[in-house]
């Protein structure tokens, strides 16, 4: 049996994470691509950390930092009268954090490849910093931005360790499709596990294929 609720939750989590990360990652990526400052390497290392840390370690720290006894957890509880851990909001925050490198790095590479003289030419054409961003930088960095969004979305669908540590396995609240698959395997329900795995595979494959197709089309158009 397909766990539609878990699939819906995963898609919601994936889209929300990508949407939340989009503006933040663009700001961080532009900053890292064009600014030289003291501590830049440390900042880049901190951003890349979720790529190499075991998900359980990241999950443990998030659980500690967001837990009800922590200042963050207490503040959230006081503000919204809700717990941050084992809730969708907590899951979204954790998902946001562990996806930062997947969003920032492709965007950073994309912004870095924009030659300085294009931005300068835009300013000389009278474009403000904001219009230069919309008219020149974003369209040129768009393949990287799209890759970042698709990677974030696909990675969120498949994330297991952090989700389990921070969100647990509450149906309709924190049970994502990856958790549901694990749950079905534990219950020896291989048919459901297989069906859900195939669905996840297809969605991820379709998203990444679309991304490559779009970028390829753009490359061909701009390459003449």
């Amino acid at each position: 049996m397909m766990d539609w609720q878990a699939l819906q939750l995963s898609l919601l989590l994936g889209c929300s994470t990508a949407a939340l990360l989009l503006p933040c990652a663009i700001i961080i990526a532009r900053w890292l691509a064009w600014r030289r400052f003291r501590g830049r390497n440390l900042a880049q290392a901190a951003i890349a950390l979720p790529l190499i840390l075991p998900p359980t370690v990241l999950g443990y720290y998030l659980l500690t930092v967001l837990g009800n006894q922590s200042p963050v957890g207490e503040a959230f509880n006081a503000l919204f009268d809700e717990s941050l851990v084992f809730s969708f909001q907590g899951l979204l925050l954790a998902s946001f954090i562990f996806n930062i490198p997947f969003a920032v790095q492709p965007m950073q590479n994309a912004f870095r490849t924009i030659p300085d003289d294009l931005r300068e030419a835009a300013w000389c054409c009278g474009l403000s910093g904001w219009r230069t961003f919309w008219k020149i930088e974003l369209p040129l960095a768009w393949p990287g931005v799209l890759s970042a969004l698709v990677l974030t979305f696909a990675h969120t669908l498949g994330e297991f360790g952090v989700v389990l540590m921070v969100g647990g396995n509450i149906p309709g609240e924190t049970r994502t499709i990856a958790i549901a698959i694990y749950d079905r395997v534990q219950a020896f329900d291989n048919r459901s596990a297989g069906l859900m795995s195939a669905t996840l595979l297809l969605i991820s494959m379709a998203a990444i294929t679309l991304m490559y197709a779009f970028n390829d089309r753009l490359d061909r158009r701009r390459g003449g």
Partner: protein
Amino acid sequence: MADNAIHISLRQDAPIPLAVDLGCAGGEILVLVGPSGSGKTTLLRAIAGLLTPAQGRIECNGETWLDTSAGTCIPLQQRRVGMVFQHYALFPHLTAQENIAIALGHLDPAQREPRTRELLELVHLKNLDRRLPAQLSGGQQQRVAVARALARDPRVLLLDEPFSAVDQQTRRKLVRELAQLRGRLNIPILHVTHDLNEARQIADRICIIHHGAALQIDAPDEIMARPKNSHVASLIGHYNIYEGTIADHDAAKGETRLLWEGLELQAPHRPEFAVGQKVEWVIPEDQMVLHQRRRPSAGERENPVIGVIEECTQLGHHTNISLKPRHCEALLNFTVPAHVARRNDLREGEGIGVSLLQQGIHLMGKS
């Protein structure tokens, strides 16, 4: 005063030194010439507002764009500068038409399309308006860049080595087009290049720049014939730069006599140099006349120098000759057509004579 001219005075020591005072009138092409890293592009960037120098003042058409003493620095978006970048910096995702239209933000939306068409026509590209930069040749890209620079109705046009990325044939064509364009614009044009020949073709005046300093600003012929000092002379490609001492002046004959390692030479009258003063002097290659070995002529009496050919190298249709005069160790360098070298049997070790034309000798204060 709104005179269409630009007046620039900039000073800074670091990161890139600048020491420049220059002006350029409306309709004038001032070419900034200097070797790579001499600060030419930095100067253009400072005018455009892409960098702010430590000290300086820039005034264009009566507007003060920069006055560091008064704390004035107009943002580059408000400076009305048309800039053509070295590699054009066209926006690769926009068509030729869009590349131009994007710089028309100061016009009403209804005026933008006709103005874009007008500019495309001006640079002979009206049929290629829908093409992306990657679909255009180097010369066509350069034309789009010029049209985009003109789109803002700029108060000054800045061209940063605009011909460096095109082949010779296209370059000749573009140089011609720039000369035609200048007739239609009444704004100052500052053109950066390291190619002196290109500068001589298009400049009304040339400014020689080195280590960020403007060493001399003059008309091309003036700068070539009368460099201010030996530094400028070597930067504009003069090889024959020597030291000498003023022997005496003869105002009646209109000449100054110069002692060069014991040999007396007649130079044009320069009474500002005192007798006995050490000077530097230069003679352009084309002001040296080879004595024909079989048929001596009267012209050979003018500053004759006799010596031995130390080096004789044929390069294409020309032969470069280094002559070691009898009276000193310095070498005189000049070029003759290869057939002349053959006819006169010029070879290393052969003795020959040359005349240094009096009018070609230029005396300079010691730098």
